[in-house]
């Protein structure tokens, strides 16, 4: 492990719902600055739940999540200042333009960027100038994802959490996103991303954690992975879809399965 | 719907069945059905109790009127207070039944003034308004019809099932037709249950319903179902016009607000005043003016004549009874002549008023009929017997009763009638004062309200019923046309 203290840290994080389902079971990991950590797992493995625990969208049954040393559960506002979030299926505000959206979220983060800075951020993520003044509802999924990333970049937080960032993107868009993430990592940010895209994980991640049924069942560094076939490892450590605890939802990510859980609860 | 034989064969039936199932198992349906059923049953129950209460009041009022006639000795001093008895259906379709004056004090002749509107004497009821079946259909069920139809097309598109439906070679017409049939069935068939129960409840509560009344009720309900079909058709059309369900919903709801809540009121409110009608006050004023004129002249004539009959220099030897009889005859002749002239004037003014009213109604209601809700309200009131025709009918029957009363009074008093002229107290001092016998109120002819025939009401409401049939057809046709060019993706 790197000698610098981790920016994102899960300490025996557990979440049990009212109906008894153990969505996250004593998960512990850490992400250091300048590192991309990929959480791999099937639907319902607990990836999104873990992320939601980091963002104080739900409270853990036990354990804690820490961002830049600050406990998310005890000081949520301070912790949130240190992390930027890119959700899956980024919607943002449909009636507002791309510029208006990023400006709003930047202000929410406490910054007052100039028009130039906003445009620069949008350009950095690959949105051309003529798209800046169009309303979000006219954007394709890829463009919306990029805008979401621009929001995250403008926040200027040291940590970055992405939930299934490449799902639904065509190969080119996914590759561009990967490039951006690598750039951000080289700037020194700690990046936590959940995905079930094995290839992208192999391509981008410095470390990979495999989640299955709420538990972190395996964790390898890039070096350790080079020698092995990640796919084979995945299939070995992750149960077949039918036996998984999550519902067989059609590829839209584990969040759907977990969300369905809470509705029952 | 029977003309829906698409080239795609029976596939519309499949769509219809699925639509029906979809609707019936949805939480939206459960909730709207619960509310509708409750309100329908409530309307019937409230209606029954209201009717029985009104009936008791009506009978008590008649008894009280008869009682206060006791001890009266002169038939000419008796002016019965008659009132329109409660109609079984007026608690289900209020119409104008609570607004018009239902009572009248009738004299042997003269103008009849109706008073005693229910809302005028019970302002709380006027402010809070009644929960009748017409309201439940027009407002609540209408809203539900809109809710059921607004995402017929765009909802399926949003869910992605539209593409799937047409992937298998379904005809557009079949799809839409099936959706329509299914939605109509889902909306109307379940409603038959609370309606049937409610009607049964109504009868069991003790409301006397003749076969004619049941026929009227059935027709009102038919009009209601046509109205619901109209709103369903409109919202289905809107769902084919717009792509996003949220927008379709908003548009459909706005249409509901404008058509159901606003247009009828606005149309009548604004148009009624543009078509002036001679007011009853003006007619009364004209009549009073003529009456004063004639009266002044008649008074002079009367004095001279009576002096001639009874004064010095008159024919001696006639007994007082005969002379009195002659005075009576003269008074009656004068009164009749006066009444005839006044009656003529009033009749011509009333005719003018009626003609103006017809024009006014045509303008105001014509404008209002843009809204299917207005067509429904008008048709329902007409069929239930609580439309404006009720007022006209009441006046006509009161006039007939007045004739009857006048004849009765003339027979009893030797040729005189009460009302419309001088009150003459003629005392005959004939030695031994003979105590006059009190009248027997039971002899007085009673006012019997004849429930009007169904046929005239049917013909008056035929136009509205036709419109209620045409509206859904037009909207569905529009929906078909719009759907032909709908982007299915």
């Amino acid at each position, binding site marked *: 492990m790197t000698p610098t203290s981790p920016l994102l840290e899960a300490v025996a994080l557990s979440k049990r719902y009212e109906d008894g389902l153990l969505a996250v079971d004593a998960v512990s990991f850490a992400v250091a600055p300048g590192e991309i950590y990929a959480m791999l797992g099937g639907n319902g493995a607990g990836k999104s739940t873990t992320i939601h625990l980091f963002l104080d969208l739900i409270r853990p049954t036990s354990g804690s999540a820490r961002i830049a040393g600050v406990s998310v559960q005890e000081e949520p506002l301070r912790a949130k200042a240190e992390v930027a979030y890119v959700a899956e299926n980024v*919607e943002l505000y449909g009636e507002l333009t791309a510029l208006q959206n990023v400006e709003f979220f930047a202000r929410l983060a406490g910054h007052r960027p100039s028009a130039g800075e906003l445009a620069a951020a949008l350009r950095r993520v690959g949105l051309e100038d003529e798209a800046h003044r169009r309303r979000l509802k006219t954007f394709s999924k890829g463009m919306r994802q990029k805008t979401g990333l621009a929001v995250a970049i403008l926040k200027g937080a040291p940590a970055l959490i992405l939930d299934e960032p490449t799902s639904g993107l065509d190969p080119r868009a996914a590759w561009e996103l990967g490039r951006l993430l690598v750039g951000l990592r080289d700037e020194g940010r700690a990046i936590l991303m959940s995905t079930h895209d094995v290839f992208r994980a192999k391509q981008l991640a410095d470390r990979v954690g495999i989640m299955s049924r709420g538990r972190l069942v395996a964790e390898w560094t890039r070096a350790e992975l080079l020698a092995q076939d990640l796919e084979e490892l995945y299939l070995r450590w992750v149960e077949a879809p039918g036996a998984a605890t999550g519902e067989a939802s059609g590829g839209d990510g584990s969040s759907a399965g977990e969300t369905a859980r*809470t509705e029952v609860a | 719907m029977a003309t829906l034989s698409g080239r795609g064969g029976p596939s519309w039936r499949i769509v219809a069945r699925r639509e029906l199932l979809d609707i019936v198992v949805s939480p939206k349906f459960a909730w709207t059905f619960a509310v509708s059923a409750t309100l329908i049953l409530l309307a019937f129950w409230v209606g029954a109790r209201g009717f029985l209460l009104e009936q008791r009041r009506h009978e008590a009022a008649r008894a009280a009127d008869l009682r206060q006639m006791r001890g009266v000795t002169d038939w000419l001093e008796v002016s019965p207070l008659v009132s329109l008895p409660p109609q079984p259906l007026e608690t289900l379709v209020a119409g104008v039944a609570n607004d018009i004056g239902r009572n009248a004090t009738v004299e042997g002749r003269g103008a009849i003034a109706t008073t005693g509107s229910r809302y005028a004497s019970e302002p709380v009821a006027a402010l*809070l308004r009644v929960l009748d079946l017409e309201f439940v259909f027009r407002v609540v069920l209408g809203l539900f019809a809109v809710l059921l139809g607004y995402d017929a097309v765009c909802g399926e598109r949003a869910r992605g099932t539209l593409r799937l439906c047409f992937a298998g070679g379904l005809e557009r017409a079949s799809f839409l037709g099936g959706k329509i049939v299914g939605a109509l069935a889902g909306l109307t068939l379940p409603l038959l249950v609370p309606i049937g129960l409610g009607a049964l409840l109504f009868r069991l509560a003790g409301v006397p319903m003749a076969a004619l009344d049941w026929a009227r009720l059935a027709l009102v309900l038919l009009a209601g179902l046509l109205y619901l079909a109209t709103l369903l058709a409109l919202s289905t059309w809107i769902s084919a016009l717009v792509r996003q369900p949220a927008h379709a919903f908003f548009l459909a709801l706005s249409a509901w607000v404008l058509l159901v809540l606003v247009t009828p009121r606005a149309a009548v409110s604004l148009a009624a005043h543009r078509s002036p009608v001679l007011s009853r006050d003006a007619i009364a004023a004209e009549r009073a003016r003529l009456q004063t004129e004639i009266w002044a002249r008649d008074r002079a004539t009367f004095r001279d004549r009576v002096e001639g009959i009874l004064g010095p220099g008159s024919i001696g030897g006639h007994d007082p009874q005969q002379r009195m009889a002659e005075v009576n005859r003269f008074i009656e002749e004068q009164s009749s002549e006066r009444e005839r002239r006044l009656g003529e004037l009033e009749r011509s003014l009333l005719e003018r008023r009626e003609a103006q009213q017809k024009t006014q109604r045509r303008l105001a209601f014509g404008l209002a009929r843009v809204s299917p809700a207005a067509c429904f309200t008008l048709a329902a009131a007409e069929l239930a017997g609580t439309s404006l025709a009720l007022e006209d009918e009441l006046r006509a029957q009161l006039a007939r009763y007045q004739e009857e009363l006048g004849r009765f009074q003339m027979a009893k008093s030797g040729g005189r009638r009460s009302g419309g002229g001088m009150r*003459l107290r003629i005392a005959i001092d004939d030695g031994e004062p003979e105590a006059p016998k009190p009248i027997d109120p039971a002899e007085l002819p009673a006012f019997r309200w004849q429930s009007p025939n169904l046929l005239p009401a049917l013909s008056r409401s035929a136009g509205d019923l036709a419109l209620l049939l045409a509206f859904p057809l037009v909207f569905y046709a529009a929906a078909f046309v719009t759907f032909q060019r709908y982007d299915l993706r």
Partner: protein
Amino acid sequence: MFGTLVHRELRGILASPRFVATFAVCSLLVLLALASGTVQYHAFQREQASLSALTDQQLAEQTRWFALRPRALRAADPLQVVASGVHLDTGRYSVVHPREPVTLRQAVYEDDAILAVFRDLDLGFVLQVVVTLYALLLTHDAVSGERESGVLRLVLAHPVPRWKVLSAKVAGNLLGLGVPLLVPLLLGWLALLLVGVPLGGRDGLRFALVLAAGLLLFAFFVVFGLMISCLTRRPAISFLVALAVWIGMVLVLPRLGLLLAGEMVPVPTAAEMDSERAGIEREMLGKEEAATSARWVARRREVMAQPELARQAYEDEKLWGWMQEDETARQEALTAIDAFGARLEERVRNLRRRQERLALGLAAWTPPAAFRTVSVAVASTDVELGARYTGAIEAYREEVRRFLLAQDPAAGAFTVRVENGQNAVRRGDEGTKPLDLSGLPRFAPPAVSLGALLREALAPLSLLLAGSLAAFGVATLAFARYDAR
């Protein structure tokens, strides 16, 4: 931070097509309602004026004092444009004569039943029914919609406390929806002034009060819609709940109030009263008859106690006194029966008033009803309208009665008396000159005290405010625990 949130909320509202649609429809309806009210107001004014002229003409033609039947007319009030209340259901005038009871006759809806078919479109209706529906439509998915789209997660991932997010939503919605509502209202006010509806000065204050109540009602529904949004997860559910609440509060409860009050406070029907009265009558007269019989028995004995020859004389002497006694006793019994009847009527009157108050009260605890209470109270078209006028007219009748008595104590009548064998004719004195009416008192409609109106409006306005605050409180609590995923 707060400003940023509010600013974005406003932007989102103003840019959405449904806001534009709402604004258009509501403006149209406000102006339409005011137009309709104005037409009604002018028509009422005209009718009252012509009735007044007719009355004056009829009075001038009279030649006998007690044949005078002046009319007391209800005044046209400019606030009737805004909230017609029971104005169109209440009689327009009453005939004033010492021997006739005061009853308001010929209400507008009674006379022109065509207007009653669909009833009235006044501003109060638009505010109470339409504007509230749109308030719910626009806010019911403010929170649940953002949850469904996912943007709520993103906002909450920022270092901003939840209560701020919610408050900003409330403030943004109130501003973004309330201010545009103000535009057609103020424009309408201006238009009313231009077409000659006197809404300045004190009446202007009353109008402002009604508008304020309307805006408060609107604010309540905005906050309430947001509250529902915080209590539900999906906009579709939010909407159904909001619609259910709207139907219940605005359409159904007022009518149910009447129904329930009728059940809870049953007023005896006239039939029941009559039978009660008849029973008492029978009882009392029966007692009186029995007493009379007893007295006659005693009297018989008295007479028999006299020596036989003196009995007739004794009876003749006593007879008159005895008949007086009997008459007095009978009168007493009749007086008692009348008193009982009066008490019975009083009881029924009180019961009816209790029922009325209950009906209004049951419905009045909902904000739409509170608004209606304020608007009709301020416009003086509440359920007491008839009673107020009746009271004032009765006082006027007393004035007229005293005036008439001062003029001519004898009510003239034309009598003919034919006497047996004498052929004499007598005539009553009827006079032929028109009367000098300059001294006849004129009816002044009951005055509207602004202070009294304010006092009446205070409770419902407080209810509206309290309701909004309560909804805000619930929304804040719900949002604090809201699952934004």
